[in-house]
Each structure stands twice: as structure tokens, then as C-alpha cells.
């Protein structure tokens, strides 16, 4: 079986590592009739075991760091990680807060970054499309 099968059936698991909920609302907006993520075969799933894409929002709060790693390990291969929102990149509005343990990519490998506070749903959809491209490249190398 090749990765070709995955490109048009990405299932997304959303994990919130201490976000202010702004990005989470934009992700829900991507599911509404206006943006309709499902027409690309993408689906929000309730368990990391079902997921192909791990969508991380928010800076990493100290309590969330081990959980984030665990959820990453629970996701079956092959997988990509999307990091949505500025605060998960360099702190954003939570910059230098006492309870943060750094950007998401210090804990798990991130494939696609989506800057913005919060980013627009179009940006999130484009990021998932970039994730397809990344999986395709991985397939060509393999």
C-alpha cells in the first residue's frame, strides 16, 4: 500500500495545549458550510488512534507537555503534525509566561506551521493541503 491512498482521506485530531480557544473556533469554522472541510475528504475525529493529521493549537503549558508527547506517540504512522496559531510558535500573546515550556516544535516534530492569531480558516485548509504535498514527497523518497 502506498501513501497515495492517504492524500484524499485525511482524518484530523485536534489537541489543545493551552490555547485561548481562538484558534479552536477557527478550526470549527473550517467545518461550517462556508468552508466545508469535508468536501476534501477531511474529517475531525475524536481519537488520536484514528488520525492522520495531528492539529496542535496553543502554547505548550507545563502540564500539557507530557500529554502532547503521549498523544503524538498514540497516533499511528504515517502522520503529519500541523501547528496552528502564533502562540505555539514563539509564545504570541503568552510570550515569556511563567507556566509555558516553549514552542510546540521543541516537544514534537512539526511539519507545517500556520501563523496568525488566530489564522483564518483558509490558512488552515491550505496548511492541510501542504501536508498532502509533504506526504507525497515522503513517498517519492521512499
Amino acid at each position, binding site marked *: 500500500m502506498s501513501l497515495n*491512498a492517504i492524500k484524499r*482521506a485525511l482524518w484530523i485530531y485536534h489537541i489543545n495545549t493551552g490555547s485561548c480557544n481562538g484558534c479552536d473556533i477557527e478550526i470549527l469554522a473550517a467545518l461550517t458550510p462556508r468552508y*466545508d472541510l*469535508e468536501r476534501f475528504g477531511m474529517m475531525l475525529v475524536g481519537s488520536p488512534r484514528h488520525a*492522520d493529521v495531528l492539529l496542535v493549537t496553543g502554547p505548550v503549558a507545563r502540564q500539557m507537555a507530557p500529554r502532547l508527547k503521549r498523544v503524538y506517540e498514540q497516533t*499511528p504512522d504515517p502522520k503529519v503534525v500541523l501547528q496552528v496559531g502564533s502562540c505555539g510558535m514563539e509564545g504570541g500573546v503568552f510570550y515569556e509566561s511563567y507556566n509555558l515550556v516553549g514552542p510546540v516544535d521543541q516537544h514534537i516534530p512539526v511539519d507545517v506551521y500556520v501563523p496568525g492569531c488566530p489564522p483564518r480558516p483558509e490558512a488552515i485548509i491550505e496548511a492541510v493541503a501542504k501536508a498532502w504535498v509533504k506526504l507525497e514527497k515522503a513517498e517519492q523518497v521512499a
Partner: protein
Amino acid sequence: MSWLGNSSLTIAAIIGGSIVLALLGAFFGLLYRGIDRKLAAHMQGRIGPPIIQPFRDVRKLLAKESIIPDGGVSWLFQACPFIGLVASILLLTYIPVFGPGALLEGYGDLILILYLLIIPSLALVVGGFASSSPFATVGAQREMVIMMSYEFPLVVAIIAIAWRISHVTDINPFIFSTVAQYPIWNQVGPVGVAGSLILLFTLLVVTPGEVAKVPFDIAEAETEIAGGLLVEYSGRNLALFYLADTIKAFAMVSLVVALFFPYNLSPVIGIGAAAPAFVVDALFFLLKVFLVMFISVTLIRTAMARFKISQASYIYIMAMTLIGLVGLILLHVDMIV
């Protein structure tokens, strides 16, 4: 009425027929799932996934890694998807699909179907418990509750029809060929038609519970218990459960069709030859399945939100059973007047 004629039903024919039925069942199960998702999306004002999306989903799941949780009972965890799939295919061999009688016609009747319908749900429950996740355990308990609840109205509806048919003929009324030979609508007067409509309504409400769809998908509720029973399943095992689910939905709707709409089109429009008659009947059957699926699955799941487990169980045990019994009484009254 059987596909092969009972006398010549050899082992090879049974195996070959089952494989063909399994492939057809998987194909149409996934196709109807795709149509269902597309229509639901349109009803919500969305474009929705392409109709072949469920095929892509299954193909993708097969390419993924299958993780077995550390704390789980490994062999049971892996066996349950197979049991669920095999039991769903078994349903198709006993229920008449595509016009002619069932493949194993005469080897099992409606009572057997009632038992077989339990097995895929039971496989889900055992698989959920075997995965040792607290979410899956909660889901498994809810699935058991809902299973026990819808059983009652389902039995009432099936028994009522068989009981009414047993008054017109001496042949075993639990066999599908008898039900097809004496369609319930032709045997009853106006009161009986009302009773039959009520029984049909009961079965249409039982169907979403049987195939775990909104508003009765409490056991798999993604938003509250993270996928419930299936929370630990991934890759190939999840794909098998996905297939079992679509095939069971197809079989359950075929059962409703076989009980209430056992009519064939070919005698009506006067096609005598075997091959074209089969094609016409098969297409007509697919149309009937589509209509029942549309009303009892797509329409209900788009129009309603999820029930709580106590509400769902109350609806089945009290409300639907009482409604079914009213239908039974109307059928009886119809015979007296």
C-alpha cells in the same frame, strides 16, 4: 425461490456465493454510506465529500499502522473486528438481497436473523472491553444498554408480521419466501394497513439504533467519549469495523425491505426471461434500499441531535415497544372486524 435451488446447494456453491455476496455487500454498503454522507452534507448546506469517499477511507485505513494498546487483551482485540465482519456478511446470506431469495433460504429464518443481528454489536462491545481504555469501556456499557433496548420493539414488529401472516397460510411464516409470497399489505383491511404502517414506523426507528447512527450513536459519541468503543482501534482493525458497520447497515435496511416491501418489479412490467428480470429486480431492490436508508438513516440523523443514553433506552423500551404493540393490536382488530 433460492438463488441456487436447495437440492443442488453444495458446499462450493455456498462458499462461492458467500464471497460474491460479501464483495457486493461491501461495495454497496460503502456506496450507500457515501450517498448518505453526501445527502446529509447537502441538507446542511454543504457540498460534502465525494460519493466514493468511504472507499478512500477504507483504503487509507488499510495503509496505516495498526496499534494494539499495551494494557489490552491482544488476541481478543484483534479477533473482534473479524468476528464483526463475518457476522455482518453472514446476515447477507440469510436476508434476501437483489430480488431473488436469500442464498441460504430454508436454512435459517427470521428468528435466526434476530440472533445474528446481535453478533456485530457484541463484537464491538467485547473489542471495546478488550482495549482497556476507560472511554471504550463506557462506550461498551452504553452499547449493551442500547442493544437490550432496541431488541424489544424489533422483536414485536417482526413477530406481529409473522403472526398475521400465519393466519393466511400454513407454511412457516418466519421464512422470507412466505413473507414475500403473502405481502402484509395485501392480507389486511384498512385497520390492518394502519397497524402495518405503525409497525413499519417502529422498524424505521429501530434501524438507526441498530446501525449506531445519530440520534442513537451514544456508544460511539465522538464529542463526549472520543469515539467510544472504537477509541483504541486504528489501521486495519478499524477498517474491518468500518466495513462491518456499512455491511450491517445494508443488511438491516434489506431486512426492512424484505419484510415490508417484498415486491418485485419484473412480474409487474411483464419481463419473463430470467436474466433481464434479475437485473430489473436488482435495480428495483437497490432503489427500495435507498429510499428506506434515506428516511431511516440520513433524514433522521440530519434532523436530530444525539439522545442521552437514558432517553434512548426509554424511547425504545417504553415508547417504541408500546407503539409496536398498538400496531399488533390493530392487526388483531383487523381480523375481528
